[in-house]
């Protein structure tokens, strides 16, 4: 009997056919683990979760504490806030901190920085890189370690791959291309997108299509994070929304409704609000008084 005539839903039929099962007999002879290729046992997932204990420090102790050590690998984190609050700063800091060698407690990885607004300032990256090298030297002196600090600020800058994106087409293209790029540069451990909403806010006439394209992007990023065990950080702008009788601030394009984010941080002038959207973390909001 043909799979196309089976009384099951169209999506499932489509999936079976695209996986190559065109007749009933082929399904019967396959074992359940063959057909459910792409799913995992709970044990495998636990192993993976333990691997993903790798976290990238944000260089702010309070923030790291709330995040459980830093920005996590295999996760997509969205960071939003009003202009000037320090989102790009944090992005650049993460691009430098991911490179901290393993001997110093870091990941020793490289960074991809996707800039949609032109806000990446090379001078600032150099300042942060120099401070990072100084910190490492200080750490060495403090612990009288034998490990040499071989990294120079210039080396740190060399390991930041910078893409400048000027339209939503290029943004979709670079996200599609990341799969190939990261396969060729396996030591990339963080992808920072600054900012995710920018090109999609103006110029998209069909808003429903925009939502679908953004969902596609969010899903691809999630898959990228899981496949290569890297951290994806989305920086986002704020806008206002009319709810409950007044204008309130909210993050642009509501990426959190895409259901693929793991955590969602909102920077405010006095406080840092974190909404953990991951399954299992029960706390809806945590407030941290951090200094900039």
């Amino acid at each position, binding site marked *: 009997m043909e799979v196309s005539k089976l009384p099951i839903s169209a999506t499932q039929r489509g999936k079976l056919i695209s996986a190559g099962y065109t007749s009933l007999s082929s399904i019967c002879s396959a074992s359940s683990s063959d057909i459910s290729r792409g799913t995992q046992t709970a044990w495998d997932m636990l192993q993976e979760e333990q691997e993903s204990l790798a976290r990238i420090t944000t260089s702010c102790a309070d923030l790291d504490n709330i995040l459980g050590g830093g920005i996590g690998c295999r996760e997509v984190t969205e960071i939003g806030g009003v*202009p000037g609050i320090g989102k790009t700063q944090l992005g650049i800091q993460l691009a430098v901190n991911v490179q901290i060698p393993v001997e110093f407690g870091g990941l020793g990885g490289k960074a991809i920085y996707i800039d949609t607004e032109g*806000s990446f*300032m090379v001078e600032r990256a150099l300042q942060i890189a120099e401070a990072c090298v100084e910190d490492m030297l200080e750490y060495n002196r403090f612990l009288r370690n034998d490990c040499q600090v071989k990294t120079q600020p210039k080396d740190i800058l060399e390991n930041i791959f910078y893409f400048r994106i000027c339209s939503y*087409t*290029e943004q979709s293209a670079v996200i*599609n291309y990341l799969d190939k*790029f990261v396969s060729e540069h396996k030591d990339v451990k963080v992808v920072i997108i600054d900012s995710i909403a920018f090109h999609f806010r103006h110029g998209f006439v069909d808003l429903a299509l925009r939502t679908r*394209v953004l969902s596609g992007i969010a899903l691809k990023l999630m898959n990228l994070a899981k496949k290569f065990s890297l951290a994806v950080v989305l920086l986002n702008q704020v*806008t206002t929304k009319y709810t409950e009788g007044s204008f309130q601030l909210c993050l642009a394009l509501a990426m959190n409704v895409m259901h693929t984010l793991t955590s969602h941080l909102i920077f*405010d002038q006095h406080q840092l609000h974190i909404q953990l959207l991951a399954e299992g973390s029960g706390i809806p909001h945590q407030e941290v008084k951090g200094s900039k």
Partner: protein
Amino acid sequence: MANKLISEMRLPKSIANIFAARNITTAKDALSLTELELMKLLDVELSEVRSALALMSEIVCPPYQTALLLMEQRAATEHLGGHLPTRLKGLDAALCGGVPFGVVTELVGPPGTGKTQFCLKLSLLAALPAHYGGLDGGVIYIDVESTFSSRRMIEMGASSFPEIFHSKGMAQEMAGRILVLQPTSLSEFTESLEKIKVSLLQNQVKLLVIDSMEALVPGGHEQRAPGQHPLSWHISLITSLAEFSRIPIVVTNQVRPQSHDESCLYPFQVQKMDRILKDRTRYYSHIVAVLGFHWAHAVTIRLVLEAKSGQRFMNVEKSPTSPPLAFSFTINPSGISLLTDDGTEMVVPETCNLSSR
């Protein structure tokens, strides 16, 4: 890049023909649809769609550069690694050399605080020859409120650089490099921007000044329903002009006093609104920049000018390379000068709160 034709991309013939048959001719058309939609539209397998998209994305994606390469390129080709020195030592130190190329720097302040003076000085500095620290190029000054004073500018020049300005013909040449446009309406401004695009491509203009931006907004300060801001196209154009021609763009903006019911809060703050409003009267100063969040995000550096109890202050409010710093300054014949080169660091409560309109 986005408008690259699919026919020129050397995809496998079969899939290229299918794209053409369904009238998807540019990369933009293809990448604006989700994978499932393409699959349905083209009637091909998901794997084929994915491999075609992967090939297309690789072609459309701009090439990457390492941050190191970026820095070295700029250091090699641009004046002072991409900065226009303002000759105010403390400010230049905070901004890593001066007003940066490629981004928008905003000057905000109530009327009479010195924004136009600063713009005039910067225009002069950009026109100066390279060995005097200038950019040796043309300046386009868009003067919306007719506050440009060429006499004042020449006075500044003669006072700061007497050796240039007293030599024959130099004053005329310097002033001749500054083109002043005075648009009287938003549509005239739009036309001017289009023309500016062309002269920027010809590489002769080294600085663009817009004084002031918010005077261009039709309807003035009335409460506007949120939706497409009338200047959003212009904002996007200005930021892309800055970036692609690698010039500094300086824009001035006015402020108005903030009233409490217009302040914007996040949803989780609304419950604590009373406490916050009380705090706000204590903490936040009552000046607010207009033009909303889109503009606020587009600006890279914000300098706020204010006059408090007889003294003038220039605050570096938003900057990627500097913490919030306040410099006190005076206005004198040669333009602006700082009273001291060490800015005082501002505590967070003193920084301005931006609210959207």
